[in-house]
């Protein structure tokens, strides 16, 4: 028995070791992937040229294995001193790679390993059958049921009155001719009341809804899918809408921001894009439209010449997008306030934008909707003991006092005046 035990132990030990190594390996590989996505993927793809060259097969191209570390640490210096680096620059100019001097050798190794091991995932077959039209609305059913029941009640009432009339006649009691229901004052009155209430309800909701455009989803000059950009490709919202953290406007990226990536990405190779009406979208054609606007020639990989010397490539023109989120002119809204100070996610107001093929207005954008959030949201209130939170709020002496005395457990936006008129209207 003991003989076997040793063998078993050895086998187990070997297995464990192998397992350990493999885990370790996968940990390294995963590390490489994460590092690649965090640092490189904005400009490089493992297997295809992008803003920068495809990285796979790097080892066969670089002059020496050490070259790559030097290059990552300081590309500008390498371009000045190294012949291969210079050639690389000539090929890809004017873009120069950003220096990543903070990447350690091991990390670079991990990235390169990930790149070399990379195999493109098999294209997903069949679309994810759009979340089966479930969650059926029962109100329709109830409505029909109510109507049917009301009709039955009406008929029964009529039958009842007819029967009574017959029985009365039988018993010889003479009654005046019954008033038909459409001239019956009770019925008429009830009808008018119902009409008034229903009509009033619809008028008021309609009037309130004037100018509100929830679910507004206009057709845009270019079929731009946030799902593909922000969802599948994980591009940060702020890469394109950078002014959201500085300005009241989130801003729509200028065409040159699109071209940062689309100089390299000429065609769409992802899953087929299908509009809500079922028609297919040709992603590559949409990218071609972008080239038209940018004045870019994808074949020569150059912008058109500026022959009319107006400072922009000939034929280029800004894209006239249709604005989706429209606030009335008398409302002041500041994106940077909500993102930088309020630390809100874009999705809070814009919905799951990374899952929207074409953007629609997710929220109602009504005053009640704004105010409600201001009532519920807590500010990053300063804690005098722990020194945590936004130091600006240290001047709210009264609230600090109240928190200390346990009269207050948190400070909402409303508490600091977030529901007052002149926070948004001036």
């Amino acid at each position, binding site marked *: 028995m003991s003989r076997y035990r040793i063998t078993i132990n050895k086998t187990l030990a070997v297995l464990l070791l192998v397992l350990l190594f493999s885990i370790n390996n996968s940990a390294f590989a995963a590390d490489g992937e994460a590092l690649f996505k965090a640092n490189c993927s904005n400009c490089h793809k493992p297997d295809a040229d992008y803003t920068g060259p495809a990285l796979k097969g790097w080892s066969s191209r670089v002059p020496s294995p050490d070259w790559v570390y030097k290059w990552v640490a300081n590309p500008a210096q390498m371009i000045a001193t190294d012949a291969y680096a210079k050639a690389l620059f000539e090929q890809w100019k004017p873009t120069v790679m950003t220096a990543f001097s903070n990447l350690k050798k091991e990390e670079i190794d991990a990235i390169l390993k990930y790149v070399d091991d990379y195999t493109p995932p098999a294209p997903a077959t069949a679309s994810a059958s759009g979340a089966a039209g479930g969650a059926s609305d029962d109100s329709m059913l109830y409505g029909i049921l109510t109507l049917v029941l009301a009709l039955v009640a009406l008929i029964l009432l009529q039958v009842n009155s007819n029967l009574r009339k017959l029985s009365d006649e039988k018993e010889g009691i003479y009654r005046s001719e019954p008033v038909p229901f459409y001239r019956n004052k009770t019925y008429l009155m009830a009808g008018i009341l119902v009409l008034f209430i229903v009509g009033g309800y619809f008028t008021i909701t309609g009037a309130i809804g*004037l*100018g509100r*455009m929830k679910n*507004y989803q*206009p057709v845009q000059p270019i079929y731009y899918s946030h799902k593909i950009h922000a969802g599948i490709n994980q591009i940060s919202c702020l890469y394109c809408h950078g*002014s959201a953290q*500085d*300005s*009241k*406007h989130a*801003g*729509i*990226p*200028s*065409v*040159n*921001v699109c071209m940062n990536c689309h100089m390299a990405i000429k065609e769409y190779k992802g899953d087929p894009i299908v509009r809500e009406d079922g028609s297919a979208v040709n992603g590559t054609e949409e990218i071609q439209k972008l080239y038209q*606007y*940018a004045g870019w020639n994808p074949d020569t990989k150059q912008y058109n010449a500026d022959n009319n010397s107006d400072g*922009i490539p000939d034929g*280029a*023109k*800004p*894209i*006239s*997008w*249709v*604005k989706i989120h*429209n606030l*009335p*002119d*008398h409302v*002041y809204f*500041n994106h*940077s*306030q909500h993102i*930088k*100070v309020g630390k809100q996610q874009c999705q809070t107001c814009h919905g799951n934008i990374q899952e929207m093929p074409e953007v629609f207005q997710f929220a109602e954008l009504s005053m009640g909707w704004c105010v409600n959030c201001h009532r519920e949201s807590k500010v990053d209130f300063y804690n005098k003991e722990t020194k945590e939170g*936004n*130091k*600006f*709020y*240290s*001047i*709210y*002496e*009264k*609230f600090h006092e109240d928190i200390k005395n346990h009269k207050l457990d948190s400070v909402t936006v409303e*508490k*600091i*005046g977030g529901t*007052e*008129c*002149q*926070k948004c*209207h*001036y």
Partner: protein
Amino acid sequence: MSNKKYWQNFGELNQTATFKQSADNEFNESLLPIEEISSEGLLDGKTPRRDFLKYLGFSTAAAALAASCEMPVRRAVPYLQRPDNVIPGVSNYYASTYVNGGDAISVVVKQRDGRPIKIEGNELSSITKGGTSAQAQASVLDLYDTTRLRHPLQKVGNDYKEVSTFEAFDSMIAGEMSSIGAKSVVLLTSTINSPSTLQIINNFLAKYPGSRHVQYDTVSYSGMITANEACYGKKALPSYQFDKAKTIVSLGADFLGTWLSPVEFSRQYASNRKVSGDAPKLSRHFHFESMLSLTGSNADDRFTHKPSETGAIALALLAKLGGAVTAPSIADAKVKAGIDKAAAELMKTKGASLVVCGSNDMNIQVVVNTINEIIGANGTTINWAVTNNTRKGTDTEMSTLVADINSGSVGALLVYDCNPVYSFSEGNKLGAAISKVPVSISFNGTLDETSEQCKYVIPSHHWLESWGDAEPKTGHFSFMQPLINPLFKTRAFQTSLMKWTGSQTVNIPTVDSTGKVLGVTPSKVSSADYENYVKDFWSGKADFEKALQDGVIEVETAPAAATFNAAALTAALGKAAAAKSGATEVVLYQKVSMGTGSQANNPWLQELPDPISKVTWDNYAMVSPELAKSLVGLDIMNNQRQADSYEVTPEKPVIKVTVNGKSLELPVLILPGLNDNTIAVALGYGRESADQANSLERVGRSATGAGKNAYPMVGFDGSSFIYSAAATVEKTNNTYPLAQTQVHGSSESRPVIFETNLSSYTKNPEALLEEPRNERMGIMAEGKTDFVKDGTIYPDYEKPGIKWGMSIDLNTCTGCSACVVACTAENNVSVVGKIQVQKAHEMHWLRIDRYFTGDIKNPDVVFQPMLCQHCDNAPCENVCPVAATNHSSEGLNQMTYNRCIGTRYCANNCPFKVRRFNWLDFTGADSFKDNQQPLRGTELNEVVFQMNDDLTRMVLNPDVTVRSRGVIEKCSFCVQRLQDTKLEAKKNQDPTMVRNVKTACMQACPTNAINFGNVNDKESEVSKARADKNRNFYVLEQLHVLPNVSYLAKIRNTDRHVGIAEEAHEEAHS
């Protein structure tokens, strides 16, 4: 209450029945203004029931139509390539320089999404220290002026045709210039103090032998310049140091309003008027003048005299100070006593005294120079080491030029930044002569009176579109950089000169770090345009980029005196008092708002009420009540019926004033404090195209029809232009309406001003505010002490974080009105036009109330900026039926336009009368295009349509709602700035950033009279100002409205008794 003392007009002074009635009936309009429009047709004016139903039906239908269920499709168009420094929605600030006719004020311009929208002072400039003037504030609107020329023009017959390219224009000019032969070339400009421009001009003149450069100041300082040449051998103006002067005597120099460099002088003057501690030191200011000027109204002691007596007064003062002259007799005992007192004070503070004189008579200025020599001003309060370069024109040069033009000896006349056809006394003749000059070229931006007479017009950029530099004072350079690409096909005046100078090398001077030109390097060929030239010019200065960023380079120089030549006096003596006197004399002056009239088409300036007369949109004959009695038979002081008929209606009697054979018909405006023999008439009005039919397009929709041109009354004494003269006056039977704002709104005789004199204050500082203190005590129940909590039955609401508050120092507010224009620009305040101002519909959120007090013939004047007081216990808030106005937890009285339904209950209930109602659609916020057209001419002046032009609307601040018709608006404490500052403070996690915040009015103020900030923070400037318990008061405090604007009481440095406390004291003794 003892407050009969402060009065705004004669009706209030005499408490006439009509005055009371009009004060009671604040809104004398019927509810529906629509009735007035259609009063002809609709059943006798009264609105019958059926009409009401019609209106109701119409407005429902209109509202439904306007609100139409279809939402408009809006577009969002991003940049093709976003410039690095532009983030949409974030303003950038660039330093530049406001230049206008020699004036140069360093400014910082706010640029939003590529459009300049607001001017602020540049705090790095030691001249202005961040102060601005009304004109500088308003000049951003000039950029979007609809009369600006869109391209170069060539005159063909009486019409103009566009010159398609600058090259074509240049070749035409080259052809013309080669054909003028031996005749001279003259460049006629306003004062140029830009070093690089002067260099270009010199290069240009060198190309044309016999050519010359004439600098022409619209309002001349030639008398001073020639006097300085005689006395000091310097043909220049020195720097005045009002901050070093303990005694200031001004002989008609309006140095806080319009004289030489008012922003600089205001700042200096105010530094000696700030009261601190219980024994404050204040400068003492004596003022001798003929009219009532802004500076005069700030003086401690003021004396009036006929304009022709200025020389005699200067001589008398000199004699009193021990000068070797025989004093002429001064008839007026008060003036005589004033001279004695002034002389004594001047000698007492010898070495820290200053005498300035506004006369353009060289001889009088020589006398003044001699006085300054005696009182030790030369080298102390007058600094000759640094000259003031904002005015350089010599009148004889101009008169010689005019003679030359008339005689036909001028071959080419190039006019830049001046408008002599309008502003020269013989302008019409000059215009005709200019049209006969072989080559005449105008660089002016509009087709003004002078450009109209020129054959070629090549408009130069607006200053906000220009590169450039300026040297307003020696060694003080201020730079210009463009804030926007030129809106139209215009070219810098300097570039044109460079092109026409031809292919010769352009001299690039070497400049040392102080900006001094060391030498000229002719070898370097500059780029052919001024944009690059100015960079080359300053290339000797290593950190030009830093200089551009700062906007200024300044060189410190020790103050120095100039050698005085006493002999000059002998020649001047006989002539100094030689001015011809008359029974009635006219004095010509500039208004603080309009100045010389170069910005006459600026609606903000036209609608800015003159701080003294409170009249907008016009000039007029300003006379004293005495003179009015003899001229037009109106006894306003003793005959109440006449007083009311004069004061309650805007129609004023018209007189015909004749000076030197030139007549002008002007409405009479009666104001106390003028000399009884003097008529004061403002310059700068009455702009008119020679082709009257085109006046609206050429001169502008605001300038056309505003006032009369008084420049023809300017005389010439052989050496300089003279701005006063004997006049004959005739009464006419006409009347003319004046739009005056002061008569709107009344404080119902409640005390709103507190002041005293320095000695009483020093003796017993607590007595100044005794009256409000007693009132406060009277309101509270026995034994209670906290007025805020115990003076009311309303609960006290806490302001947990920030509580905004403003403090205004009445002692340093000079009434200059820069804040009013700043407020207008910042907050999209509408311009309503003259017709609407007459109906008390002006929209200014901030007004400067002017109060008279004391001697009716020579009253003291107090200015009080009045804006929404943001009362914590606001009377307006609890009468609003829809809660459109309510209070914020930061102490702001909030106004929500989209909720307001226009009942005006709040305006009615406001004790300060600061709420303004939008009677019409003044800013084009209406849903229906051209909705205002039917009102054109009858209800709305042309200016409203000018303001609604797409070009003009570019000036609107995108952070502030453009208000529509039918809502109330008022001062918001610049809430957009407060919100923005709070946001920045939160982003930076720094609560000290909200300690002191700059509102638009505060930022514009040249004297720092306004402080604003967080009152809850004891370190804030406003808290510190309020700590002065002896002077800090709230207007109408006894109403327990708890205003968030506090005032610091005024203290005059005089021996006379002033103010309420004094009166109470006197009454107790009598």
